[in-house]
């Protein structure tokens, strides 16, 4: 870190990440994210194979989902992810208060996803639709449930990030912020694939 940056509490990173790394976040976190996304890629493959083998069931089941809720959740996560990008940018510029505010906003907006998801689950269970209804709903509940678990962990990570940004410690805090941001992006990226796959692709009956 340069002397000036150290005095100002700003990480000396330029356009690259913490420590001058070309990676968007910590290499270990990136490994975790890639492994996790690999697992979801398998989920998507399983779903696609199922849809090809029984398109009628999938179409009829898809018709019972509300794409408006899926779209609203997509927008919520994209906006929330964008705010985290802005937070990382602020962090790289040494504007810790601005970064913290943006992470708080990302968390507040992102929490809308949880409300809609719980509402959607409650509605499905209320209509007698469960993971055992058919293969489509097995995948629907399993994949969105595992995604929701990732979302819940992401909320915890953002809460810790907000706490760390209260008393920032230069590059260490920036590295955390970047890794938290990368994880949160994984959550929205996975949903961006889940939404069309579950709610749109293959059409409805």
């Amino acid at each position, binding site marked *: 870190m340069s002397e000036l940056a150290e005095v100002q509490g700003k990480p000396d990173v330029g356009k690259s990440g913490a420590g001058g790394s070309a990676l968007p976040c*910590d290499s270990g976190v990136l490994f*975790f994210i890639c*492994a996790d996304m690999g*697992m979801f890629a398998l989920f998507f493959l*399983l779903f696609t194979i199922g849809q090809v083998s029984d398109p009628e069931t999938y179409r009829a089941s898809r018709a019972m989902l509300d794409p408006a809720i899926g779209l609203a959740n997509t927008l919520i996560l994209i906006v929330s992810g964008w705010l985290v990008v802005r937070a990382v940018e602020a962090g790289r510029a040494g504007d810790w208060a601005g970064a913290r505010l943006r992470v708080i906003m990302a968390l507040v907006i992102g929490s809308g996803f949880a409300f809609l998801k719980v509402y959607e689950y409650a509605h499905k269970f209320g209509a007698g639709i469960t993971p055992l209804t058919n293969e489509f709903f097995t*995948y629907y509940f399993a994949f969105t449930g595992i995604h929701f678990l990732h979302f819940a962990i992401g909320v915890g990570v953002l809460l810790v990030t907000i706490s760390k940004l209260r008393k920032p410690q230069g590059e260490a805090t920036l590295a955390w912020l970047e890794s938290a941001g990368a994880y949160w992006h994984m959550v929205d990226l996975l949903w961006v694939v889940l939404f069309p796959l579950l709610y749109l692709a293959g059409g409805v009956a």
Partner: protein
Amino acid sequence: MDGTKITTDNSYGAWKFCAWNGMIFMGVFIVFWGIMGHNIPPYAGSLEAEHIATYFRDNRNLVRLGMVISMTFAVSYAVWGISIGKVMDFILGRDHLLTNLQVWGAGLTVVPILVSSSFWLTGSYRPDALPTETLQLMYDMAWLLIDLGYAVTSVQMIALGAGCLRDKRDVPFFPKWVCWYSIWVGFMFTAECLMPFFKDGAFARQGILNFWIEFMIFFIYAPIITYYQLKAINRIRAEVGD
């Protein structure tokens, strides 16, 4: 960190032997529990009881031998975990919470393996005298226990990953990706919670996710950790001396 303050135990040969127990466990687990016990892959949850009963009755001695050896070597997993704990002492200092969690997680992993193997052994003990559905029950019960006992192993893996990430050495004992792999595998095991709800498909005990993926990432876990663990022991020996 002054190594001499961490431990006066310089029996590095014993450390390495204990480290190799991870590989011993994995080898025994695959051959005796997996292949001889017909658990790699398992019988499908949707299979009729008669099929499973026939397997117990026709292969009783094979299953007995497989489970006897499997139960005997189940403790190797705990031995391995204690050896990992020795290395973690040199990362975190003595008596660190994460080291204790890793050691306890590895130790408790022995329990579901031991108990579930005893169910398979019980099924093979007098299969002619037991009703067909009872044999199916033994097989189901064993699989439900070994799959749903995942959490103790997750504790070991997550504690290992989180602990070794704190290594401040220029070249850490366990690379970052190994630490995160450990955390990821521990986390991925949560998918086993879905297993009791399905008899067919990806989430059933024989399914592509809950068996093939989950067990494959577990099977390659021990060799990866053991490789870096053995290298770490050599480095500790070089740092501290005999």
